[in-house]
């Protein structure tokens, strides 16, 4: 871990030893950058699952998670350049849920970008979401980095348009886990064609960061930790030197390297998910790509949820997970191994022994 990361983390979370913080004035954070102009940070909030009960009532716990993430992000110093919201703002895609969520996000003091999750989409196919937040896919440039925002939770047209008697049932079927009636996520041909065109004007040395809701890789189909046309999307990204894909949906820390592409998942503000090992009824051949999260402490309602801020250094992502009531984690690209690694817990021996009994 570089000194910069350490300082930044201590500064955000509070160090174990106050003396250590005092010894390193915060101003050194700025000095540590070789070329401050090229480096910047942005914050990432995702998977809030705002859930309407009835009337003006919403599930309190999910509300509090998003409210807290927004309030904390507003306190960040140095200020992030922008905020990305990573999808699943709503639980069942209704207007009350999207409105309520948008109202909470409106308190962010920063330029905010949004992308679609399946929970926002499958009721009205993103129509109301679009009224609030804009196009379903787009790209933008910031300080020499090309950012691409995808709608990666589309699926087969037949499933979306012809199979279900009501929009509500379609929404519920897609929201289920291990649901035989579900359907795998995909970016789809139309959007891939747009992506190819969008990337055609970008120099190969330009760092590219892709934001999606589902992982643009295949992890576990039963929970749609999966994108059916992941390989085709990866192929479009292959010509670039530095590519990072950041995705939500999985509510846990994951990271991986496939060829030139680094993958990072972000935390949910609503609830944590375990890696779905226990749910695999047959041998699943899941890749071992994460340092597992410690078990959530049920005493703390917010444990194993969180949000993150991201340092973009020379085009590579340092993902800093701000975890509630837990030890913060940093996953950064390791140039020696050519892949993202946990800066503190990567080696088996360095990990905190999980609690195995209750």
């Amino acid at each position: 871990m570089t000194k910069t990361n350490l300082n930044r983390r201590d500064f955000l979370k509070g160090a174990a030893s106050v003396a250590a913080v005092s010894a390193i004035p915060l101003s050194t954070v700025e000095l540590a950058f070789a070329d401050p102009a090229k480096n910047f940070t942005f914050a990432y909030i995702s998977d809030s699952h705002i859930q309407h009960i009835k009337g003006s009532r919403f599930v309190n716990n999910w509300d509090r998670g998003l409210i807290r993430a927004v309030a904390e992000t507003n306190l960040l110093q140095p200020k992030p350049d922008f905020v990305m919201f990573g999808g699943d703002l709503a639980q069942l895609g209704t207007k009350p849920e999207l409105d309520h969520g948008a109202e909470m996000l409106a308190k962010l003091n920063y330029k905010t970008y949004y992308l679609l999750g399946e929970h926002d989409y499958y009721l009205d196919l993103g129509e109301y979401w679009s009224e609030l937040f804009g196009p379903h896919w787009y790209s933008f440039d910031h300080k020499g980095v090309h950012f691409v925002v995808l709608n990666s939770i589309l699926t087969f047209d037949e499933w979306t348009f012809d199979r279900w008697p009501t929009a509500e049932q379609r929404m519920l079927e897609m929201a289920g886990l291990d649901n035989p009636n579900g359907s795998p996520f995909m970016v789809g041909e139309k959007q891939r064609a747009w992506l190819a065109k969008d990337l055609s004007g970008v120099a190969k040395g330009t760092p590219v960061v892709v934001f999606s809701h589902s992982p643009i890789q295949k992890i576990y189909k039963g929970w749609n930790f999966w994108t059916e046309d992941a390989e085709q999307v990866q192929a479009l990204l292959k010509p670039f030197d530095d590519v990072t894909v950041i995705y939500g949906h999985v509510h846990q820390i994951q990271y991986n390297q496939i060829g030139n592409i680094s993958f990072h998942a972000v935390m949910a503000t609503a609830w944590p998910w375990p890696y779905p090992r226990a749910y695999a009824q047959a041998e699943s051949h899941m890749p071992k790509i994460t340092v597992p999260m410690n078990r959530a402490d049920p005493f703390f309602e917010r444990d194993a949820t969180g949000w993150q801020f991201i340092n973009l250094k020379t085009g590579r992502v340092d993902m800093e997970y701000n975890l509630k009531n837990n030890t913060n984690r940093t996953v950064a690209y390791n140039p020696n191994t050519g892949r993202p690694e946990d800066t503190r817990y990567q080696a088996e021996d360095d990990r905190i022994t999980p609690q195995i009994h209750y």
Partner: protein
Amino acid sequence: MRKAVFVVLLGAGLLASAGVLSHAGQEQSTPLGLPPVPIPENNPQTPEKIALGEKLYNETRFSTTGEVGCFTCHEPEKAFTDSPLKTSEGIDKLTGTRNSPTVINSAYFTTQFWDGRSPDLEDQALHPFINPVEHGLKDHKPILKIVRKDPEYAKAFKDVFGKSGKEITMREVTLAIASFERTVISGDSPFDRYYYGGEEEALTEQQKRGFDLFLNEGRCVSCHVIEQTQALFTDNRFHNIGVGINNIQDDVPQLAAKFLEADLSLSEVDVEVLTDPRTSEIGRFAISHGFDDLGSFKTPTLRNIAVTAPYMHDGSVETLKDVVIHYNNGGVTDVGDPVNDFLSGGIRALDLDEDQIDDLVAFMEALTSPEFEQSAEEADGQ
């Protein structure tokens, strides 16, 4: 349970546990409901050291006015608080921002002060002397001057530490004060006699109902911990329960920035948080800079709580009933008030009715140790 904890402590090599020494220094058994007092290896208890500590605790010359001592805000007759003051009064009637926490059983706490800015009793004793609204000294020199020259002190320090003159430092002063404070422990309350002593009659029916609420519907025990063999009524953790911070919600970004931009020394923090009421409300965040700690304060013990009104870190809540109502409302004093963005996850509306609230208060009244009962009677009489 206790055995397991004991082994861990010894294994860590940090603490040795000993029997309890009374004020007079005699070995006495641990009161019902409490574990053995943890005694740091580098500060063993001796009767002479405890006596010296008590003398230092009651010394008023260690203040600019010659009127303020440790006991001023932690009076033995008031269960080692300054009840009914809302916030403590130091020199020239200057007031701080926080309600005086009791010394009783502070020997068991893993951090000291409401925001835990001090790791142990030895360190804690350093700070009030040089706080401008407490003892008011500029530095510790006047204290050292007295303890090095005053014949009684000189003899006591020679006897206890084998040191004299310049060899006596604040280290020895605070070791002695901490030793005395480790004798200020109390259990044996009606609750202890009921729960640990098997005296069925020690609690009234209402108090028993309150105990059930404390463990279940009221969810009090989540933070005010009761264990199989002992009850410290604290988890030694920090929580934002919607007190204080609720008054400065719009100022949080500005106040938080003050601590994020400049790393203050602990002494600077001590002055900041005790002299500026708005800054005080930021809680443990001033120490840890962790967002989890915004507006959070240490879970206080509930022992002798009935005799130490008013309540909360700022003394803003007058009665135990009002405390329960605050929790019942989900961390707001009045229903409908805005909930703090940083409220701890465990705090949410409880939906207790009026009778249940009274039952909980009755239970808390059963936590008074016999030696402080008299204060309770006086409080009732007022």
